[in-house]
């Protein structure tokens, strides 16, 4: 695994995610999130998971983000309302940022307890986990029930989206 590639992709992912949170225009946020997903796909390739990288691009960047873009364009709400001082003052924002930083610190602390854990370099293991056939076999045997339940989830969400967003007659 290439250290330089990791740091480049990690920097792109972090900067793009910060851009998503910092932008006021939802359109720019969606575009930056696609950049972030592309960087994450690169990280999946570094992790010997090329199939996951491809699905990340096709499903996330290709399908879900297009759905978001459709809604942003449909609603045509380019600017964000100013924060009403009565509902959410600067104090609440400070508490929110504080809680998020606390979360980050907790994760960092837990990781410092872990010690340095390097990945295996055994070529047999790497070939096994990067094989699409292996993923397919596992998905349709061990995880067959979860896979079938997923189809029901998608059906429910599809019907739900139509019922919620559809015009009432």
């Amino acid at each position, binding site marked *: 695994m290439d250290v330089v590639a990791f740091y480049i992709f990690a920097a792109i992912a972090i900067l793009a995610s910060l851009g998503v*949170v910092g932008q006021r225009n939802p359109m720019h946020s969606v575009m930056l999130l696609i950049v972030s997903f592309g960087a994450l796909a690169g990280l999946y390739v570094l*992790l010997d*998971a090329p199939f996951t990288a491809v699905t990340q691009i096709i499903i996330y960047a290709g*399908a879900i983000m297009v759905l978001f873009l459709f809604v942003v364009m449909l609603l045509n709400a380019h600017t964000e309302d100013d924060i009403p001082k009565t509902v959410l003052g600067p104090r609440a924002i400070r508490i929110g*940022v504080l809680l998020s930083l606390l979360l980050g610190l907790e*994760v960092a602390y837990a990781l410092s307890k872990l010690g340095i854990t390097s*990945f295996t370099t055994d070529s047999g*293991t790497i070939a096994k*986990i990067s094989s699409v056939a*292996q993923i397919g076999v596992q998905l349709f045997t061990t995880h067959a029930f979860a896979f079938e339940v997923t189809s029901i989830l998608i059906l429910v969400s599809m019907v739900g989206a139509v019922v919620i967003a559809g015009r009432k007659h």
Partner: protein
Amino acid sequence: MVSLNHFLILSGILFSIGTVGVFLRRNLITILLSVEIMLNAVNLTFVAGGRYLGTVDGQIITFFVMTVAAAEAAVGLALVIALFRHKETLSPEAFTSLKW
């Protein structure tokens, strides 16, 4: 040499950025985008963990997370459209009719 720690730290940073977005943003669409950042941070953890353990289970869970993210985006955006049609705004402060 990149270790598991690198990926877990990156994942923690991305998750925190997503949390900041959910707390700070006053736009329903951007809040949903921040949730997507958090889901992706978790996906990265799963894939890195699977790589560390030498199994494909991490990648398989990632597919299920992607499916749930797609369902969540579809229903969430349908709710956003319905709410916008109702009040003509995307600010979460406008929707307080269920507030006690």
